[in-house]
């Protein structure tokens, strides 16, 4: 019996099983959890983390790291709002935001891959530089959105489900496909497994890494736009600490910080577990200060479980 249980929990799909059990328990025990409204609210609350986690997964899988995502999200949000206000065209604002995200990501990638600066240090630097840009651009103040159409990005619904959730779902599908079924995805995992051997096997390691960071920037741009639309303004102090939530969600989803191991399904589950925990705690009126502790404990437990799984897989 216990042997069976261990096998299920430590197997490939262990995390999914734990997620289903946790979901069922929370549904039963927490009042008002399993309602349409709450479910949509829960999904809305994980949109930013979920979107950024898509590409953070690639970053971690290639043994890299990106701390600048929170700053890029805030900066892209500012750019989107300010550019649309200035030009009167929302589309131009969106393009500008995504382009800015891409440029920051590309710079990260080039510095890391070509100049061989540690990813942690590089993105720690750009995290501060980009946050600085966001603050300077509006002199530290929030910038309101002129056009009401901009709000519609977050408010509009398709088949009763808000647009941001659709965007999240589409990105999950796209990046799941990219990871498993494209050369780019496989090269990412190979680089994380052994960068030098990958290079000697003909993988263009530098180019792949630059692409990973550029994509990360683009995705942060999308997240920044949706966030700005939801909070109806560009906030230079938005998304502070986002990088830690995103990395937590990825690690929770079984992405190895040592590189070479990642699954989209794992990351989705990781993102949802974080969302459910927060949502349930809110419904139970647990004060925010305690929520930090719970989140930390969940992360530690997840990593512990992952460790047990690795040794059960018999890494000799």
């Amino acid at each position, binding site marked *: 019996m216990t042997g069976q249980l261990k096998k299920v929990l430590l197997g490939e799909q262990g995390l999914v099983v734990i997620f289903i059990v946790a979901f069922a328990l929370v549904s039963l025990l927490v009042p008002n959890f399993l309602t349409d409204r709450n479910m949509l609210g829960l999904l809305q609350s994980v949109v930013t983390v979920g979107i950024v986690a898509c590409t953070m997964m690639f970053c971690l899988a290639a043994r890299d790291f990106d701390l600048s995502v929170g700053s890029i999200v805030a900066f892209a949000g500012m750019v989107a709002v300010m550019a649309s206000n200035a030009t009167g065209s929302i589309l131009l604002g969106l393009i500008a935001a995504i382009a800015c995200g891409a440029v920051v990501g590309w710079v990260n990638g080039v510095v890391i891959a070509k100049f061989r600066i540690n990813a942690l240090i590089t993105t720690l630097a750009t995290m501060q530089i980009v946050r600085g840009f966001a603050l300077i651009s509006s002199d530290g103040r929030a910038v309101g959105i002129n056009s009401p159409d901009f709000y519609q990005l977050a408010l509009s619904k398709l088949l009763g489900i808000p647009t941001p959730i659709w965007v999240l779902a589409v990105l999950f599908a796209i990046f799941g496909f990219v990871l498993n*079924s494209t*050369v780019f995805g*496989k*090269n990412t995992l190979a680089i994380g*497994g052994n960068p030098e*051997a990958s290079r*000697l096997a*003909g993988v263009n390691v530098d180019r792949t890494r630059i692409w990973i960071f550029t994509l990360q920037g683009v995705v942060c741009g999308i997240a920044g736009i949706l966030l700005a639309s939801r909070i109806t303004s560009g906030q230079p102090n938005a998304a502070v600490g986002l990088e830690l939530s995103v990395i937590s969600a990825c690690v929770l989803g079984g992405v190895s910080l040592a590189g070479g191991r990642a699954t989209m399904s794992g990351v989705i589950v990781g993102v949802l577990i974080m969302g459910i925990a927060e949502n349930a705690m809110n419904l139970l009126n647990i004060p925010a200060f305690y929520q930090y502790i719970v989140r930390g404990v969940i992360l530690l437990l997840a990593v512990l479980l992952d460790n047990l799984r690795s040794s059960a897989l018999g890494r000799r």
Partner: protein
Amino acid sequence: MSFLEFSNITKTYPGVRALSDVSFGVEKGAVHGLMGENGAGKSTLIKILSGDQHADAGEISIDGKVQAYASTRNAFDNGVIVIHQELQLVPELTVAENLSLGRFPASAGVIARRRMLDDVGAKLKSAGIGIDMRRKVKTLSIGERQMVEIAKAIMLDARVIALDEPTSSLSSRESEILFALIDRLRGEGKVIIYVSHRLDEVFRLCDSLTVLRDGKLAAHHTSLKGVTRDQVVAEMVGREISDIWGFRPRKAGEVRLKVDNLSGAKLRTPASFEARAGEIVGFFGLIGAGRSELMRLVFGADPRSGGTIAVDGKAVLATSPHDAIRAGIVLCSEDRKHDGIIQGRSIEENINISSRRHHTRFGVLNRASEIATAETFIKKLKVRTPSRRQDIVNLSGGNQQKVILGRWLSEQGIRVLVVDEPTRGIDVGAKSEIYELLYQLAEDGMAIVVVSSELPEVMGICDRILVMCGGRISAELTRGQFAEKAILAAALPDKKTPDAIAS
């Protein structure tokens, strides 16, 4: 009852029975050889001895006392020390500090440096190890580091010392020093377990010998008197291997690879050579002679500072392995673990990593053809594995090598195959399979370049040998001219007599 006794050791990993019911004993003051092909269970047995792994059944006793370790630390305390192929030293610390690590003489947490140096100095002296203990380990040669590892065992008053392939990266001279040290330890009544692939060493050094095959005890010799090499090889492989080289003469065709005055940061003297279609060219030399450096330049793994490379008369401007592969040059690196295998990924992915580009559309993989490629090469190269989905780190060295060969053979338009130490750490059976494969590839018109530190190997399988010494090509011999002395003389840096090393 022997001093060190293994009784009925059994160990099963998921899907593999690594050891089944292995029993044998070793006497005090003996050097005991442990031989077997890769995957025969030697490493597992050593891991159980060191407390790194636990046997499912059976026990180990030392001096009549059953050992039950919970960890390697316990094994340490019981006087069992295992010296692994990958040495466990801290590069930034000095020899003395490494030897005192974990048991620094200290008062109130402050290291008593004088006392540490005295202790270490005395031990090194009594063991006859002449290494300056104030030097940092990172400045030592691999041979010297190995000495430090053994000194560590002596410092701990080890009763049982297991050496896992200790000479695999040593020069002949360093090996000699190691053997002298082992002789000395034998005289002091230690038990030495000597794991090696090299028959010469085992016959020269060991008093007794155990051969494992497929996790079972294949043979146990309490004395090596009257035991022949062929007999031991047969015990390891389970069949007679008459001629492991199996050389077949071939006709060399057009010049495939032409390297002209190639140089780089690690190879200052420009080097030139060529290899023809159907030819196997050997590069022999001591470690550090510049052979691997030259091959890395040919493959674009290191940036070149001058010279040209041409394949079939067409200049190759490769500045990266990525380009070299597309020009038809591939390299199997010497350091499989660091430069070859992608850890944590399956055999299937390790095979397809490069060649998948021929089956993709817009960067999207063709799963079916990847599976087919993997299955084809697993079968063709006789990779021993339960499944193509197996993580490559779970394979033995020989099988990993075959997977990497599969990676290149599944590529298209490969004209030049460079293999650097293709059979290092590989057992006899897999060796002859790899040689046979090289002959077939040469017959199909590839130019093959073999870098090897084993003279019998280059002499056994090559059509032509280039000798390197001190970063330049010092001699070239065709098969008819092969002579051990001449090759060694060209490989040695100064006018030292080759006989001393040939013996």
